[in-house]
């Protein structure tokens, strides 16, 4: 490759973008939805009552439940309810198992302390986990999504290098001019939302850095990675049981003392090691959404039997604050409603950046074959993957939501079936895209997605007791909001379909083909 540096970077941008584009589109779209994962989960389990949050009272309920059901477990975790996630979540370790599969998790009603009786669904958590685990076994999904993140970083930087007129064309967007407009749009989203694209991509690597790049840990800690984690995360040391039974102190009482450390803050999580043993320890961690930077040192540890303070919150050193900031910025837990919607639209921006790139890649090359009428296999393949990877994915998301509403609430396997529906619809969209060609496939899949999403409120009304009239009357704006947002997305997709059909109709007029002036009805 003897051309210039810029041309080499343009080549890399084009090909890395293509090969990883579909995967990145899926990661970014599901990741964007994840900013509203709690809201989607609430929509997916409408039976869970919306309660006024009293974290302290729910802590007492959690302790009662755990003492009754997990008395011999060596480790408890209690996630306290907050405004966005009003459920009380408890998790405990099976005393006979180690590692990832050893934990059991129950969701409790914070008021009654009983297990929640609601339709089983993964809700928004499905999209959240999918965007970094890709429904693959541990740890393969994370490695693949991290590789995708590195490629995204490469495409962003090569895009910047390639964009010669980045300052001159900073405000340039010329709609209604065919491929020029697509490039303008791609560049505009790329440049104007660049801080977000770069932050979200780099931070995703930082989040998994101990898995991705452990060499320095191994070198400086002589292979003792546990020592490293103990230094970063307080209370991570494995405790030895004393063997003497001793009652655990009342956690709700310790709650007040813990909150004194952070007067304007909230408690996010309580973890107990060796409950019921003389060596028990209790740790109260500050809510992760209280600060921009995610701070593992913001935790206070008490002795489990006496309530004496064992370890105070520690100030983290600068590098940890930087890493914590990357983590916190990526998750956006600190964001209030306005900022959360901005996060969402930025995420959509990244998704569209990738989507416009994929469409342009194909469009440019299809032009060369337009006259001959024959499309080489490679372009046909890209066309199918574009339709299925983008329209098909949106359709699959709609399918997941429809499955949630259609499957009977009491059916035990329904959580898995909802996920299966997602993948089944996605698979069918690939088949459909392979059979139908070009813009017909786009129009048909997007139309179906538009109808499915716009019809979601009606479906909720028909299949649950929590349709729009009920949720609005009850002031449950989260549930109503998800229904409305689905309707909004459906309408936007319908508009997109109208535009595609209009353009396809114009392109089919042979006289207009050669040098198309901008048509009056194209300038909106």
């Amino acid at each position, binding site marked *: 490759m003897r051309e210039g540096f810029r041309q080499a970077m343009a080549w890399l941008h084009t090909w890395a973008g293509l090969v990883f584009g579909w995967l990145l589109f899926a990661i970014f779209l599901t990741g964007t939805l994840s900013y509203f994962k709690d809201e989607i989960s609430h929509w997916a389990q409408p039976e869970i009552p919306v309660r006024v949050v009293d974290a302290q009272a729910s802590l007492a309920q959690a302790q009662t439940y755990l003492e009754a059901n997990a008395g011999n477990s060596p480790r408890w975790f209690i996630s306290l309810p907050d405004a966005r996630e009003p459920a009380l979540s408890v998790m405990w370790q099976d005393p006979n198992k180690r590692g990832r599969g050893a934990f059991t998790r129950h969701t409790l009603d914070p008021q009654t302390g009983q297990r929640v009786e609601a339709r089983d669904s993964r809700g928004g958590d499905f999209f959240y986990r999918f965007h970094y685990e890709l429904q693959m076994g541990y740890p393969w999904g994370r490695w693949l999504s991290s590789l995708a993140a590195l490629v995204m970083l490469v495409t962003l930087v090569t895009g910047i290098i390639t964009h010669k007129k980045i300052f001159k064309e900073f405000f340039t*967007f010329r709609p209604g001019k065919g491929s020029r407009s697509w490039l303008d749009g791609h560049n505009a989203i790329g440049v104007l*939302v660049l*801080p977000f694209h770069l932050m979200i991509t780099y931070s995703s690597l930082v989040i998994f850095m101990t898995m991705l790049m452990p060499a320095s840990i191994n070198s400086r800690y002589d292979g003792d990675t546990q020592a490293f984690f103990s230094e970063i995360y307080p209370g991570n040391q494995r405790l030895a049981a004393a063997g003497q039974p001793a009652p655990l102190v009342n956690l709700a009482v310790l709650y007040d003392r813990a909150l004194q450390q952070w007067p304007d803050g909230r408690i996010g999580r309580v973890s107990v090691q060796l409950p019921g043993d003389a060596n028990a320890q209790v740790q109260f961690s500050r809510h992760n959404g209280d600060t*921009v930077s995610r701070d593992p040192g913001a935790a206070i540890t008490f002795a489990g039997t006496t309530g004496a303070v064992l370890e105070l919150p520690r100030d983290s050193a600068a590098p940890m604050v930087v890493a914590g900031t990357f983590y916190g910025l990526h998750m956006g837990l600190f964001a209030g409603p306005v*900022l959360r919607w901005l996060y969402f639209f930025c995420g959509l*921006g990244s998704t569209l950046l990738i989507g416009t790139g994929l469409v342009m890649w194909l469009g440019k090359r299809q032009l060369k074959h337009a006259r001959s009428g024959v499309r080489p296999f490679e372009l046909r393949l890209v066309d199918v993957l574009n339709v299925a990877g983008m329209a098909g994915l949106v359709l699959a998301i709609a399918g997941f939501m429809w499955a949630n509403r259609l499957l009977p609430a009491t059916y035990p396997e329904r959580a898995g079936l909802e996920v299966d529906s997602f993948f089944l619809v996605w698979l069918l969209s690939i088949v459909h895209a392979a059979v139908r060609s070009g813009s017909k496939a786009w129009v048909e899949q997007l139309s179906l997605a538009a109808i499915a999403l716009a019809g979601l409120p009606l479906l909720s009304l028909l299949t649950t007791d929590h349709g729009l009239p009920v949720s609005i009357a009850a002031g449950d704006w989260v549930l109503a909001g998800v229904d409305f947002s689905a309707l909004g997305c459906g309408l936007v997709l319908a508009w997109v379909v109208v535009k595609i059909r209009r353009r396809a109709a114009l392109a089919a007029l042979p006289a207009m083909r050669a040098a198309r002036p901008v048509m009056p009805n194209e300038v909106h």
Partner: protein
Amino acid sequence: MLSAGLLSYAGFSALCLAMDRHHQEMLGRRPSPSRKVQLRVAGWALLGLSLWISVISAGWAMGLVRWTAVLMSSAVFLVWLLPYRPRWALVLAAVGVLLGLLAAVARW
């Protein structure tokens, strides 16, 4: 965030006007060199003002996050509005400066 948003929108509009092509689009003539300098100074000043407002209302951490979010959003909004309704974009910038300063005083 509202005041920071209006001011950053106005700031970007000024910087945009400082470019020949966009000045032509919005006002029908090319800007004089001195006008360009004035617009650039005004633009950067407005952006700086929106940063200052963000930081004094929410501290450095949240302030910088909000400012970045507001910066990106206002830029996207301007670039989207510009080709369709250049006059509205201009009017909004002028109104935005006034409203933005007012909102800043009212602490929005």
